[in-house]
């Protein structure tokens, strides 16, 4: 703790224009050699920068954010067809809801549309591209509990995903019905923020994890046809918007790796696909399972001037 205090004091001196040349050299050395210090340095600056843009009335910010979960009475169900056992969040994407709660122009709405920890053994997982909004689908996968070496990122269970027959990566997809989600109004933008965690069963090789999100004008039931024999890289012409985030590990990394991505969800979008992939970079390396857990997706509607994407 003492050492941390000294390091933070060093950062302070550099920012407050009190540092000596030796201080700067020490700061640079620590930034170069100590990843933990680098993180602390960036976090310290993040707090300092954040304080500069604090609203004058601090209470106003929190009251402006319609943070989830919204109360049940604030939503009006249009169609209720939630399948039992689908481990979605409070607002199941397979249920159509219309927003009736009035929002001020300055509000930011955060609506959870997916929260999957694979805790529910009855979760539907099929071994091809999913055919409905109520299933995960892709390469061979199954729900497993904590194993001796690995614990779930969230809860007590996770998804074990195998690589595809012809690929070093395994894919898992989920369709979200966007047509039932609230629309952005003029001066607002609507995005879906997705985060997912990945883990290698047998670390030691360079791993590759990707998270892709794409929106489509087609309805969820029509999406499967688009997917027939088409790779992600060739999907550009079919999508309205697309986002990708990827992580390649150095091969020495152990533990869960988390990646996130944000996609614009235009008004014309009727469906959206979240695709997760995991595998080894080296195609010659033996194929081993990878775990996926804690997949969360939030719809965010924010005024353009206040947009703070994840």
């Amino acid at each position, binding site marked *: 703790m003492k050492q941390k205090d000294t390091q*933070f004091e060093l950062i302070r001196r550099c920012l*407050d224009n009190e540092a000596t040349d030796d201080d700067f050299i020490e700061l640079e050395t620590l930034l170069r050699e100590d990843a933990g210090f680098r993180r602390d340095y960036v976090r310290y*600056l993040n*707090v300092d920068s954040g304080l500069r843009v604090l609203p004058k009335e601090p209470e106003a910010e929190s009251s402006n954010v319609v943070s989830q979960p919204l109360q049940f009475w604030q939503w009006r169900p249009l169609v209720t067809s939630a399948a039992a056992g689908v481990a979605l969040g409070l607002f199941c994407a397979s249920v159509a809801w219309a927003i009736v709660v009035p929002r001020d122009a300055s509000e930011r709405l955060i609506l959870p549309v997916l929260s999957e920890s694979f805790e529910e053994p009855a979760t539907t997982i099929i071994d091809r591209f999913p055919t409905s909004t109520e299933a995960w689908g892709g390469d061979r996968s199954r729900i497993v509990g904590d194993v001796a070496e690995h614990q779930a990122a969230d809860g007590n269970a996770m998804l074990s995903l195998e690589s595809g027959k012809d690929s070093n990566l395994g894919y898992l997809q989920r369709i979200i019905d966007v047509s039932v989600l609230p629309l952005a109004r003029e001066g607002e933008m609507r995005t879906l923020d997705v985060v997912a965690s990945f883990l290698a069963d047998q670390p030691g090789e360079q791993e590759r994890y990707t998270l892709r999100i794409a929106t489509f004008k087609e309805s969820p039931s029509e999406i499967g046809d688009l997917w027939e024999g088409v790779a992600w890289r060739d999907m550009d012409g079919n999508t309205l918007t*697309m986002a990708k985030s990827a992580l390649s590990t150095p091969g020495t990394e152990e533990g869960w790796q988390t990646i996130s991505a944000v996609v614009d969800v235009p008004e014309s979008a009727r469906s959206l696909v979240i695709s997760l992939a995991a595998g080894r970079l080296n195609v010659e390396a033996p194929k081993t399972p990878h775990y996926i857990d804690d997949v969360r997706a939030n719809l965010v509607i924010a005024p353009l001037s206040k947009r703070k994407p994840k």
Partner: protein
Amino acid sequence: MDESDREQHDQFLRFFMEHEDALRLFVRSLLFDQEEARDVMQEVAVVLWRKFDPAMDNQSFRRWSFGVARMEVLSFRRDRARDRHSFGEDVVELLEQSVQQEAASLECERDALSRCVNKLPQAQRELVHTAYESGVKINDLANELGCTSMALYKKLHRIRIQLMDCTRKEMASEGTA
């Protein structure tokens, strides 16, 4: 502005706003001084808009915009702050990676910050609001408060550390840490 210009403009705004906070933080991490960082960020925004290619996707924009920010910091150092300490290329790259990789978590941290400031004792909360108000000079404020600027700097430093602890706890309780 015709339709295609408007679309290009909207596209640029979407991308820029998505990455603006991270870019600002990256620039700040290289320059220390808030005012200088603000000047450089203005230049970064101008260059990004002037050279924006609408064919870019979001990820390409992110990579490109960080490259532009890095060049603008170098240019600023060369033209206006040659005497200041600047980091080696390897450290600049490491900081860029840190900011990009931690972007989501840093965003959550900024979101949690307002709540944490509200939890501060009233005297500290008022001090933060006053000290961070635009245009306030620490020396002047220290005089007003009847303390040395060093004492005030240290007081603000302790509050920042307190807020870092608080945001970490907030994020842990929300499952975003």
